């Protein structure tokens, strides 16, 4: 018998019991919908995190002072006085290091144009924009010469520029940091919020030497950002830095921490993979439940339509024709359920994304998985009832009341 004719019969049978068909599909609809919706949202969030991690710069290794793993030092990341400019110079001498910037951080009140603003003041080297993969929107970065001469030069972030120079070009203007006049040489391009929700554009960057001698009086740096030549040498460079600093610091305990952006990325992907497994589990359970619902209703349907089966057999339907007819009916049920679920899931995630201003990713792979598994669910759960129907004896089926 033709598939098309079977489809027509299935469609009519399902339409005859609209409400029941809908309720039967509900299990698959909810299962597929929940998974697609959740995957859209979480993979959107994951992608956002990944973007931000790569936003940190390319092939970046960060050396923090203090040790993350020893309890006593916790909370002292970047504040324990262990990293020096000499350490920085030594790391700069390692092979495969293409950029380096010692970082000193401070918060300070800044003044310009008769306006004032409290912001983060960073001391960095001229490599900083390159390491952070951060463009200069206006003007230029300060130079090595500025570092040597403790120049009072500053590059400001977009937020600071907007706050202090609402309608003018800040380049060439003066900004007072702790009452010291710095000349603005450049404005950084907008970068947005980081992983922790901080506004990365709310920043003033000055030469680290100026920061350490003029704004503050420090001899230690908070951290050192190192850029490796490419992603293949990152672990190698990390190891070399560790060895070098251990040797230089001659301390028994490691008083610094070396972290690469790669490791951060791996943490993020591991998290999202775990999330994926969890979702797959939820999906599997709800699809099995949906399948049981379909099997149940198909069994009821076979019983109800025993007479119809008898009539069809009496006029020449083979067992296989009956089997196919009920299988198609079950698959149609689950496929429509799956389709509604996919549409609903995407709709739900888009709505949430719109309301909460979150990114979503339409998970093509998961949609394919949903389509395939709802078809499989239909076949598996429909098979037993369909087989039962096909085994009926025509005479007994006809006699069924």
């Amino acid at each position: 018998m033709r598939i098309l004719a079977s489809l027509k019969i299935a469609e009519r049978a399902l339409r005859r019991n609209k409400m029941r068909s809908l309720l039967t599909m509900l299990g698959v609809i909810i299962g597929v919908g929940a998974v697609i919706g959740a995957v859209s949202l979480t993979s959107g969030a994951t992608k956002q995190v990944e973007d931000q991690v790569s936003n940190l710069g390319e092939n970046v290794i960060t050396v923090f002072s203090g040790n993350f793993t020893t309890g006593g030092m916790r909370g002292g990341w970047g504040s324990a006085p262990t990293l020096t400019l000499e350490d920085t110079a030594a790391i700069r001498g390692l092979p495969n290091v293409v950029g380096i910037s010692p970082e000193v951080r401070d918060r300070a009140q800044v003044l310009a144009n008769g306006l004032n603003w409290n912001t983060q003041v960073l001391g960095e080297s001229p490599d900083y924009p390159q390491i952070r993969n951060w463009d200069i929107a206006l003007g230029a970065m300060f130079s090595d010469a500025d570092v040597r001469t403790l120049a009072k030069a500053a590059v400001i972030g977009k937020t600071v520029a907007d706050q202090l120079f609402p309608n003018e070009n800040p380049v060439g203007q003066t900004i007072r940091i702790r009452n010291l006049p710095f000349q603005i040489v450049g404005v950084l391009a907008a970068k947005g919020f980081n992983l922790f929700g901080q506004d990365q554009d709310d920043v003033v960057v000055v030469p680290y030497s100026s920061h350490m001698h003029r704004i503050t009086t420090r001899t230690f740096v908070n951290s050192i950002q190192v850029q490796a030549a490419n992603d293949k040498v990152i672990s190698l460079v990390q190891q070399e830095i560790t060895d070098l600093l251990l040797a230089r610091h001659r301390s028994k305990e490691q008083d610094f921490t070396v972290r690469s952006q790669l490791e951060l990325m791996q943490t993020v992907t591991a998290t999202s993979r775990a999330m994926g497994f969890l979702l797959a589990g939820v999906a599997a359970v709800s699809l099995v439940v949906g399948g049981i619902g379909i099997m149940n209703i198909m069994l009821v349907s076979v019983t109800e339509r025993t007479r119809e089966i008898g009539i069809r057999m009496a006029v020449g339907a083979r067992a296989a024709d009956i089997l196919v007819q009920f299988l198609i009916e079950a698959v149609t049920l689950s496929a429509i359920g799956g389709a509604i679920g996919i549409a609903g899931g995407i709709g739900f995630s888009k709505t949430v994304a719109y309301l909460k201003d979150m990114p979503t990713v339409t998970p093509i792979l998961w949609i394919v998985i949903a389509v395939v598994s709802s078809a499989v669910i239909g076949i598996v759960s429909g098979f037993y009832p369909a087989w039962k129907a096909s085994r009926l004896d025509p005479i007994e089926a006809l006699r069924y009341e």
Partner: protein
Amino acid sequence: MQTNPVIKLDAIKKTYHTGEVDVQAVRGISLDIFPGEFVAIMGSSGSGKSTLMNMIGALDRPTGGHYWLDGIDVSTLNRDQLADVRNEKIGFVFQGFNLLSRTSALENVEMPMQYNRQRITAHEQVERAHHALELVGLGERAGHHPNQLSGGQQQRVAIARALVNRPALLLADEPTGNLDSQTSIEIMGVFQKLNEQGITIVMVTHELDVARFTKRMVILRDGRIVTDEAVANRSVAENELQRLRQEQQAVKLAS
């Protein structure tokens, strides 16, 4: 007769094994039915008429004996082959009509063609179904559902369905059992017309009046043939209808 029989039964038996006692519904029936015959199978209730018909219709298997349909030994066929025989060679009309509810007359008539091993195009299916409905005088009711049709009309749809695959043999188990006498005569008219066109018809009935429209009467008792004879004063549906109308007219005039 030189032609081969359409139906050849040789010592056909059917025993039902239910519970403690075995019911011997058919106890050895031998019968030849030739092309163009119109046979009535009669007998009291429980004499085995339906059991015999179901075996002739390849719906049920005998527990003993042999059955050749159109020269094929049906007793040796498997389930699928029986289904094909039912589809191609036999049209079956049931006492209870057995139409699919909530399905139009046309679609009911189309149904056997969906299972035809020779593919029939959708267009041809519709055309043949329409033609079959016209043959039984229901051309205008193609779109009606069974619950919108009278009993006689439903039975006509069932007859159209039985004819649509152009079978050599039309079987009917009490086709008029649920119908009033006028409608019964009308249905017999349809059968007589079909028989004139060459279709072999075997029909179960327990009403002598109805059996009189056929050409041959086979009477069963306790699963055996007790009488097998040609119908003497054969009724013609047209004449009977006319007489019935006149009688009704007379009743009206009298009142």
